[in-house]
C-alpha cells in the first residue's frame, strides 16, 4: 500500500507541474508530503507560483488563479487514473475569456480518455460539447430537459 501510494503520488506530482505550466503558460507548481516518513498519514502541501510572481501563499492567489490551479490538480488525477466519467458543475465560473479558452482546450483533450459531463453558463465552454442537454422549467418548479445535437446549433450570446 505504501509503495503504491508513493508511486501514484509521484505521478500526480509530475502531472500537476506540467498541467499548471500549461494552463498558466508558465510559472511553477508542486505538491509535497508534509511528513515524508509517513506517506500514508501525511498531510499534503500545495505550492503555486503564477508566472512572473514571487512564490506566495495560496490565500493571496486571485479567485480565477485558485480555480485554474484546482483545475490543473483535478486533471492531474484524471491523467494518471482516468475515471469512467467526470461531472464538472460550473467550475469555469471565475475564469476570464483567455483562461476559458485554455480550459476548453484541456477538456477537449481529456474527453478522449474520460467522458465529460459539464454544467456551465459560459458560451465558450458549451461550444466544445458534442451534445447539449437544455434543462428548463416550463412548469414552475418542475424540470424538463431537451437534447440538442450541437452540429445544428449556433450559440447566441443571450441563449442561456
Amino acid at each position, binding site marked *: 500500500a505504501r509503495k503504491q*501510494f508513493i508511486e*501514484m503520488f509521484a505521478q*500526480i506530482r509530475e502531472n500537476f507541474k506540467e498541467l499548471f505550466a500549461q494552463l498558466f503558460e508558465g510559472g511553477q507548481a508542486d505538491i509535497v508530503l508534509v511528513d515524508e516518513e509517513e506517506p500514508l498519514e501525511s*498531510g*499534503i*502541501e*500545495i505550492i*503555486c507560483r503564477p508566472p512572473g510572481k514571487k512564490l506566495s501563499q*495560496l*490565500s493571496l*492567489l486571485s479567485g480565477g488563479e*485558485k*480555480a485554474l*490551479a*484546482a*483545475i490543473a*490538480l*483535478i486533471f492531474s*488525477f*484524471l491523467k494518471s*487514473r*482516468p*475515471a*469512467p*466519467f*467526470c*461531472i464538472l*458543475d*460550473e*467550475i469555469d465560473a471565475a475564469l476570464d475569456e483567455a483562461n476559458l479558452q485554455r480550459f476548453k482546450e484541456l*477538456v*477537449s483533450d481529456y*474527453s478522449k480518455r*474520460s*467522458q*465529460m*459531463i*459539464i*454544467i*456551465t453558463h459560459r458560451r465558450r465552454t*458549451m461550444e466544445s*460539447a*458534442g*451534445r*447539449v*442537454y*437544455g*434543462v*428548463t*422549467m416550463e*412548469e*414552475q*418548479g*418542475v*424540470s424538463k*430537459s431537451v*437534447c440538442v445535437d*450541437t452540429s445544428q446549433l449556433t450559440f447566441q450570446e443571450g*441563449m*442561456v
Partner: protein
Amino acid sequence: MQLNKLYINGFKTFAGKFEFDFKEGITAIVGPNGSGKSNLSDAIRWALGEQSIRLLRGSTLADVIFAGTSSRKQSGMAEVTVVIDNGDRAIPLEYDEVSVTRRVFRNGESQFLINGIECRLRDINDMFAGTGLGKETYAVIEQGKVDAIISSQPNDRRGIFDEAS
C-alpha cells in the same frame, strides 16, 4: 467504462419519468438558474451511493423526493438508475452493461439494486472501488467547490489522494 443512460423519477425537481442518453466525449448541461442542472449531478452521485445529506444540500434523506409545487402533488418516492457501459469489463461482472438503481420512500426506507437485483450499499461501494468514483471521488466536482482542495488544510487533502491509489 462510461455512463450510457440515466433514468430519473421523482428526484428533486424531476417530478415525472426522465431518460438521458450519454455518448462518449463532452456533454454540456445548460439552462437558467434554478432549473435543475445541479439536481442532475446530485441524482448521479446519489445513485452511486452518496450518503452525505450535506452534499445533497438537504437535511433529511427524504429531501431528495420531489416535494410538490403549487400545481402538482409531491411524489411518494424518488428513484434513479445509472446504466454504465461495461464492455471493457472494468467491473468484474459478465455483462456489457451494469445498471445501478437507488430508491427512497417517504417513510425513509431505501433500496439499492444492481441489474434489478436488490443488494446492499456495501455491494455498490465495492463495485466502484478503484474506479475513481468512490466516496472521495475527484471525478465529480460540485458547484462552488472547485477551489475547495486549494483552500483546504494539508491534512484535509488526503481524501482524494487515497481515492487515487
